[in-house]
């Protein structure tokens, strides 16, 4: 009897203790959650049910502000085979190694007195340049910690609006529906970039963070392994392999229903190749090479641009195209030599990324067929 009482009393005490600790560490609910400083979006322009918590939280992946640059030819600690994103604003050429971007995803800085954000989503392999002054007034972007169909959702630190990187627009908050003013960004390997633009500036590992930039944060085969996908794909499209890289042309205000056209890099020849194509009733020219993993696109807007007879150029990098006037054009569409030297072609609204991501974002995506 005494034992029974002892058991009962002890059991009661210990359960009370457990309950007391549990309630102390959480409040009074059996199951709850709370947060502060998060992004409060009343209405999303994308399917809210597909907006996922990627894990690190808002700014858990810290962006880089005011990065350090050095002359590309002087930098020896990046691997030649790994990719870089790069942009050009007039005479300022900047390269952003994926080795660094994998761990920061966003760089906010000034290029030639313009407020520029370079964003990179490692999961979808997409690099987007944004002119912040033209987009919303110069605010900085941060990593929201949210994903939509594997892709980075950014937020602006002024209004806390959310921005879909691959839709190139704000998808929630004060700026909802506003298009980002993009800057042409190309991607190629670090080795190729140094060969094309040895005097350009490249972001160094001196980022202000103590990270190891030599590792592969998403696995050494993430860029090529079709099975290595971190979040579900909603719209699978088997016309290409998942990790095939394609260059996509998009209209302004692109959303899931928009017409988007994709050009597989594998469709470009080993040497420099030019594709002239029509998309949504407008003329475009794409120049690229499968071998050097490089592609860029231009919209033929002016009469001068429409009358150009562009031919690919090999072995004369950074010149990749030449026209009937003798102008030599680089991958950013700048005339480096010839009678129109200093002028530039109109950049198309587009970017390069993995096929699985583009086809998931834009289920009706049109795939360019050679000979169209």
């Amino acid at each position, binding site marked *: 009897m005494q034992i029974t009482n002892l*058991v009962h009393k002890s059991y009661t005490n210990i359960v009370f203790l457990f309950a007391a600790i549990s309630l102390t560490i959480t409040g009074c609910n059996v199951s709850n959650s*709370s947060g502060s400083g998060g992004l409060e979006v009343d209405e999303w322009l994308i399917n809210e049910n597909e907006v996922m918590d*990627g894990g690190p*939280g808002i700014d*858990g992946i810290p962006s880089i502000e005011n990065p350090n640059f050095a002359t590309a030819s002087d930098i020896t600690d990046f691997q030649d085979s790994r990719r870089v994103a790069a942009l050009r604003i007039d005479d300022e050429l900047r390269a952003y190694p994926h080795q660094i971007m994998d*761990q920061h995803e966003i760089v906010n800085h000034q290029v030639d007195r313009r407020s520029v954000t370079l964003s990179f989503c490692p999961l979808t392999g997409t690099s987007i340049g944004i002119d912040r002054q033209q987009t919303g007034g110069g605010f900085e972007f941060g990593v929201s910690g949210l994903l939509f169909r594997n892709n980075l959702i950014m937020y602006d630190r002024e209004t806390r609006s959310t921005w879909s990187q691959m839709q190139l627009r704000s998808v929630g908050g004060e700026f909802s529906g506003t298009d980002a003013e993009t800057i042409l960004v190309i991607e190629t390997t670090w080795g190729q970039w140094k060969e094309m633009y040895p005097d350009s500036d490249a972001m160094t590992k001196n980022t202000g963070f103590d990270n190891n930039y030599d*590792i592969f944060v998403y696995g050494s085969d993430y860029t090529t392994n079709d099975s290595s996908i971190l979040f*579900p794909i909603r719209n699978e499209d088997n016309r290409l392999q998942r990790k095939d890289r394609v260059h996509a042309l998009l209209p302004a205000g692109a959303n899931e229903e928009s017409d988007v056209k994709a050009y597989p890099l594998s469709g470009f020849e080993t040497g420099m190749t030019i594709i002239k194509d029509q998309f949504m009733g407008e003329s475009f020219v794409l120049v690229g090479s499968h071998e050097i993993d490089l592609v860029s696109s231009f919209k033929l807007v002016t009469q001068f641009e429409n009358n150009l007879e562009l031919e690919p150029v090999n072995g004369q990098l950074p010149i990749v195209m030449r026209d009937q006037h003798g102008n030599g054009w680089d991958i950013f569409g700048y005339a480096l030599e010839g009678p129109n030297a200093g002028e530039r072609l109109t950049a198309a609204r587009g970017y390069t990324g993995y096929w699985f991501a583009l086809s998931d974002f834009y289920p009706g995506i049109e795939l360019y067929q050679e000979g169209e």
Partner: protein
Amino acid sequence: MLQNFQKPTASLFSLIILTLLFTWPTHAQICSCAGAPLLGTQSSGASEAGNVLIGVTYEFNQITNLYTGSEQITNDSANRNTQSALIEINYGITDRLSASGTFSYVRKQRTSGIGTPGETQTSTTAGIGDGIALLRYTLLPQSLWNRYYIAAGGGVKAPIGSTTLNNPNGRRFNADMQPGTVATDGVLWSNLGLNFLPISTINLSLTNSYRLTGTNERFVEGDDYRFGNEFISILGLSDTITDRISYKLKARYRSTSSDERNDNVLPNTGGKWITLIPDLYITTSDQTSIKLSGQIPLYHELNGLQPSTTYAVSASFFININSSQNTFIHANN
């Protein structure tokens, strides 16, 4: 048959076999539990018939540091902590067979945006965590005539924890912020002990556990997610300081294989940890005792880039209810 184990040679043989059995090499996994303890906190004893050992533990686990491989990275942008309340009930069915159940309540907090120009964000989740049910059998009890102790067991980790917690905006938290895992896991456990009486009051122990993880549909139906298998080996040395105070110094090796999604290995998951765990036991009465414990990380070898425990502290309170009232089973065993 079991009496054969009491022969010294058989004991030594059992010791070797069980050590080998539960020390096979494994590949490994992240702190997918994000610091929520379950296996490592189990008391090492197997109660005698009719005895009930109840323990309540509070643990605070601070997760600030980032690691890549064995290299620590200064991380000023985010930190996490996990607080857990655990209750373990261990009942002796016979003198050799005991059953135990561990239930948990888990609170996780994630703060990000520290040191960046934007605001910091703090998210908190709390709820019932997963539980473990184990059956343990004492193959070789320790006695005045036998310095070896061998026990082994197995059970399941039951997915009773919450896994569907949303933030205030209604968005589902990532798996590492959820108290539970959704998956049913198999658990193997063994405990080997050795004393040196009458020469010394020092005890040596080796506790091994292996968790074979099940799969869950983490995102959508048909999308299989599997946390990595987990192996934990704890080598302990214990001794008495006074009649009522004793200590145990433990070195814990933990290895988890990488998480998998649809059979594909996920980056930044899995790794190996070595942790020093000092325990202090205070016997407060014939039936009760207290354990104070800490965790000091000694070595990491983590896949990719991962946050990991910076330190952890815990306090436990044990009540032993002995039906025969002639022995007190110490939680330290």
